């Protein structure tokens, strides 16, 4: 019997999950993953995916017909809380595979695409997202990578950048221009691209937090079979909206649970004196705690009510800013000690307790996937109905 099969009884489900995690999460995995080689990191991520999958936990958020469980919010909450409590590894390498790929294909994928690619995700195939370009970040629709139809295939040329986990990935969700003469939002198409195909060059970029998780990707006459077009030709902008709006809620929720556990451990620790006995730090700590609880609450509401379409940009801004403030505050609590470089392991940007690295990594959340500035524009213009910026095209 798999852990997920206990879900009908929340108490037993939680107990079973906790017991299972206690058994399988390797005690010192953080140390093992610290400065691990690419191969070790990738092997470990695959191992953990397989373990979770065997218990029905990796893709529990998927629809039933794809082998998911269509969990209720309460069940999802239990999983995240227990994963956080157990300090289980997070499946960073599979973020796009497990969330954005199904999110995109569910709405736009053909039966062939779903049958061909979805099982691979469960088996550990890695996907990454090839949207941004050097000249097209916030203004994604200005992208210039070209895909030209040639019989039953497309030929792609161009350059992508900031593709997270590109060095580990097998497949690419690619946005490319298929009609250079159409208005900029109307000439883009979305593709599934094999990153191992001839003409693809992936170069990791060194990051300020000491990692090199994102990559530049050069595309030189890369062939894509026409059957790998997702959605209609030139409708890529709409397809990309599904990719981008993929429940970031779930991801942030999982991270918030980890932050929450960290708070709880702090409250119970003798170490708490370090901020409890300092008026300023104590108050800052409580402000962060309140922010974190507010974000959790918003995510709960968002997951419970699919009409809460106002919440996603709010949640993303608040999580990123809370994480930034929280980790920054800790660099001041630890003082000089926090300024010493310590090796770390790759994660999706949450509070790990290596505060300076957590602080630096927090910009992932404020810049990528719609920067805080762009999301504030979205809130102001689409939610509050304020007029658009003059001449912003």
């Amino acid at each position, binding site marked *: 019997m798999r852990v997920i099969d206990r879900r009908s009884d929340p108490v037993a489900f939680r107990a079973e999950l906790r017991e299972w995690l206690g058994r399988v999460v390797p005690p010192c995995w953080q140390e093992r993953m610290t400065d691990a080689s690419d191969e070790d990191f990738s092997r470990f991520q695959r191992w953990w995916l397989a373990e979770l999958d065997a218990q029905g936990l990796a893709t529990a958020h998927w629809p039933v017909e794809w082998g998911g469980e269509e969990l209720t919010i309460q069940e999802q909450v239990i999983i995240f809380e227990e994963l956080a409590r157990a300090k289980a590894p997070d499946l960073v390498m599979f973020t796009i595979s497990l969330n954005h790929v199904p999110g995109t294909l569910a709405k736009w994928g053909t039966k062939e695409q779903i049958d061909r690619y979805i099982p691979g995700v469960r088996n550990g195939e890695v996907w990454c997202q090839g949207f941004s370009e050097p000249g097209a970040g916030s203004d994604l629709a200005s992208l210039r990578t070209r895909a030209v139809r040639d019989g039953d295939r497309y030929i792609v040329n161009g350059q992508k950048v*900031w593709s997270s986990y590109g060095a580990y990935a097998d497949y690419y969700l690619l946005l490319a221009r298929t009609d250079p003469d159409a208005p900029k939002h109307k000439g883009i198409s979305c593709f599934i691209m094999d990153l191992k195909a001839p003409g693809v060059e992936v170069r990791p970029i060194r990051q*300020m937090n000491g990692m090199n998780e994102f990559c530049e990707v050069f595309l030189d006459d890369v062939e894509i079979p026409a059957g790998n077009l997702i959605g209609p030709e030139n409708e890529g902008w709409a397809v990309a909206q599904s990719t981008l709006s993929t429940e970031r809620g779930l991801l942030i929720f999982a991270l918030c649970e980890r932050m929450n556990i960290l708070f709880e451990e702090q409250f119970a620790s003798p170490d708490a004196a370090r901020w409890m006995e300092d008026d300023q730090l104590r108050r800052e700590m409580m402000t962060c705690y309140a922010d974190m609880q507010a974000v959790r609450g918003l995510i709960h509401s968002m997951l419970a009510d699919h009409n809460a379409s106002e919440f996603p940009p709010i949640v993303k801004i608040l999580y990123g800013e809370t994480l930034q403030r929280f980790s920054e505050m800790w660099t001041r609590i630890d003082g000089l000690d*926090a300024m010493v470089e310590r090796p770390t392991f790759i994660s999706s940007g949450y509070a790990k307790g290596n505060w300076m690295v957590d602080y*630096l990594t927090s910009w992932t959340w404020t*810049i990528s996937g719609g920067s805080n500035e762009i999301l504030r524009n979205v809130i102001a213009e689409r939610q509050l109905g304020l007029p658009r910026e003059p001449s912003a095209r």
Partner: protein
Amino acid sequence: MDDQELIDSLAESVGAVLANNFSIEEVLKFTNVGGELDAEIKRRACELGWLGIAAPESLGGGGLGIEALVPIYCELGEHLSSLPFIGQQLCIDALVACAFEQDGRLAALVEGAAWGAVAPELSFDSAGIGRDGALEADDIPVFDDDHDSHLLLFGREADGEPVALMLDIRQAERRAVAFHDHTRRLRMLAPGGLPVTRECRLASGDAAIALQTRLGDHLALALAADSVGGCRAVLARTIDYLKTREQFGRAIGSFQALKHRAATMKLELETAASLLRVATACFGKNAKSSALASLAKARACDVYVKLSGEAIQLHGGIGFTRECPVHLHLKRAKLNQALCGGDRASIDRAANLLVGRAA
């Protein structure tokens, strides 16, 4: 030339040397692939006589005061320089203040034949002297390299009497520690066990306390100036980027949301810079001037952290890479902030001084 003109032209010439030969692009290369930049800048600093600016003229120095050093600290911060100028100047200041003008150590420091380091906490609790006359101290982080010869340190005699020490650390054990700030060299120094001879003692009792106050203020101003200089650079770089980077068919700096962010950065920089000038002008006078030095330090570091963080955000994806120097500023700012006991200690020091309470 009057003193002010002299000071301005000095800072200008330091800035020019740094901009031409030790630019931030060079520093970035140095932090990414290594090289000799740190040794090179020390050589140039000696050659060009920067080290003796505040030393007595009788020793070939410039005979100027803190008001000449502060603009140079700014320039060094602005260029993310690795030159261990602050430790050197604190050691010189200490020797001059204690009337050790004839001391060979002073001449060597002025020439650059010796290099001085300082324990950044400047606390009497950081070291003690045992009955056997040997130093008892934990390891201390210092801006220092393997060639440093002197360490300025405060501590207590076996009977508890405060004492200011300058130790010969050529034989002391040191190990390199990797700090997030790669623009400067830091070492963990293990001075414990070093013999404390008579000539190590610069001042005792009230004189040591007065020296500690003076050097505490000096260090605070130096770090404030380093930070203000860093703010200047990080703001200039950001403004440049806002003018040249285009999205949505226009320079991103034309979005009012970003214009206001840039304007706020400017306001914060000018506040920190003004506070630094005010504190520099009254350096060494009284409790109020000490309080202002501490407030200038706390504010400048805080603003430096904020501005570098904003700069990363406003640079977008590029700002997250190691090839963009903005993160070097953030890491240096964070380290500056953590020195001298951190921001809260500086602000509390000011409050205690102004209200007349012992810290």
